[in-house]
């Protein structure tokens, strides 16, 4: 997952590191590599204020002081890292990270590095990694802990799933049903996609396999009625969570959007979750933005993240639409769904394989 982005971020990280390294060890400066500083000899310390034995050779002395300062702390100027930052910017854009998110990351990295005093013993790489981590954390937001949300809210918690056609909404509903069931919650699914041929059967098969109760009407029935019945069932049977599947729709199709409005009025969802595919990249971000503007969304699920090497949508969606990313779909099996944990993703992007 996001292999391309990880590779490119590693390259950008080394480039930033070497730009700073170059400042730390300008040509002519002698002494050990700044990345592995060694404690200076007491005789070279300027703190003593006493001239050492080298005082007779001013040039050598100054050099030593210079080395000492470089070792002790390093101040990065904007000019030093401009080239590397512009590389990072292109890297992020190439990975389909939306422009506002890219700007935010670059701004944060710049803020984190420029004027930074490197402490003794701190390597240049850790300086770069830390500022990249802070920048990504800022853009990725806090994620959305669904189980915690359910625990803290009045039951049944009603979750409405929306999104465009063919992105894996129905499968996502089944996967989240499975996830919540494993977390100890009771779940009922409302087969609100009465529009697409075979959709009711599809969600029916999933529900049967997972042992989850499903409420369904006939094809072509009013989805609001199906979902109203589902909520009624959940209330009377003390079910914890209602997962409402709906038909795929585009934000610019007025009649389908009106239908969604009606569904919202009738079932009064606690959460509206927008589902799209990670592989759609920036298109997914644009669509999520439009959807949020038209019907509103509280959280986002991105499917097919296992096939997405660029990771642009996952990185930029929370920042661009201001709604958290809740889950990533990463495969065909029911347990192939990962709660989105920003810290984990950042660690894996910058340190290891996802």
């Amino acid at each position, binding site marked *: 997952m996001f292999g391309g982005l990880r590779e490119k971020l590693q390259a950008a990280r080394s480039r930033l590191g070497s730009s700073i390294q170059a400042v730390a060890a300008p040509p002519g400066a002698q002494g050990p590599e700044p990345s592995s500083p060694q404690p200076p000899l007491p005789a070279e310390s300027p703190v003593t204020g006493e001239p050492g034995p080298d005082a007779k050779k001013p040039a050598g002395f100054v050099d030593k002081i210079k080395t000492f300062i470089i070792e002790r702390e390093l101040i990065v100027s904007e000019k030093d890292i401009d080239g590397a930052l512009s590389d990072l910017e292109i890297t992020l854009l190439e990975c389909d990270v939306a422009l506002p998110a*890219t700007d935010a990351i670059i701004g944060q990295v710049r803020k984190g590095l420029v004027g930074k005093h490197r402490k003794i013993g701190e390597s240049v790489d850790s300086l770069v990694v830390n500022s990249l981590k802070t920048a990504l954390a800022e853009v990725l937001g806090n994620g959305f802990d669904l189980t915690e949300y359910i625990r803290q809210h009045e039951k049944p918690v009603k979750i409405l799933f929306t999104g465009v056609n063919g992105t894996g909404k129905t499968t996502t509903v089944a996967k989240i049903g499975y996830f919540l069931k494993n977390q100890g919650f009771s779940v009922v699914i409302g087969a609100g996609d009465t529009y697409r041929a075979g959709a009711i059967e599809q969600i029916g098969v999933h529900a049967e396999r997972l042992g989850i109760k499903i409420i369904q009407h006939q094809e072509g029935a009013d989805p609001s009625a199906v979902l109203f019945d589902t909520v009624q069932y959940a209330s009377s049977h003390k079910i914890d969570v209602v997962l409402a599947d709906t038909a795929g729709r585009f934000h610019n199709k007025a009649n389908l959007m009106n239908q969604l409005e009606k569904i919202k009025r009738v079932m009064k969802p606690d959460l509206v979750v927008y589902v799209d595919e990670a592989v759609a990249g920036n298109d997914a971000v644009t669509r999520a933005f439009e959807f949020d503007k038209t019907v509103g969304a509280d959280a986002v699920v991105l499917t097919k993240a296992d096939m997405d090497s660029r990771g642009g949508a996952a990185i930029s969606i929370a920042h661009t639409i201001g709604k958290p990313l809740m889950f990533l779909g990463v495969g*065909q099996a029911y347990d192939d769904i990962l709660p989105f944990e920003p810290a984990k993703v950042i660690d894996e992007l910058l340190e290891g394989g996802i």
Partner: protein
Amino acid sequence: MDQRELMTLQQYLQEYGQQAEIFVQQLQLLENGRMEALAAIESLEDMLTAGEGTVLLQIGGGASVRARVEEPEKVLLAIGADVVVERSNKDAVEFLKERVMEMEASAKKVAETIDRLRGQMNEINKRIESGYQQAMASGEMQE
């Protein structure tokens, strides 16, 4: 195997079929993207050698006009996230080649998924087949 089990298997088969269809569409999109990128690479490389010559500029609907490229060395390239940047011809070709490689890797993954789905569909088909045979055999015995 009873009738109900057979129906469930049929539903599974249908569902796997729908999933496979979505992945086939995705594969097609990747293939289209790959072909477009390869065509662009070829055009960019040829433009450098075309010199002052004219090229045919497709304007859609099968119509083309003769055009002269003023600066074949400079290319405006959509690098992602709806951002277009100016690159040298060589850099643009390199970028497109990388994209082709990326798309090939993704297509491989999608193709593997389709294969896996087809394998599962075959399995289900076999079970349905044997279910039918069992049902027919027991029907004959009852007669």
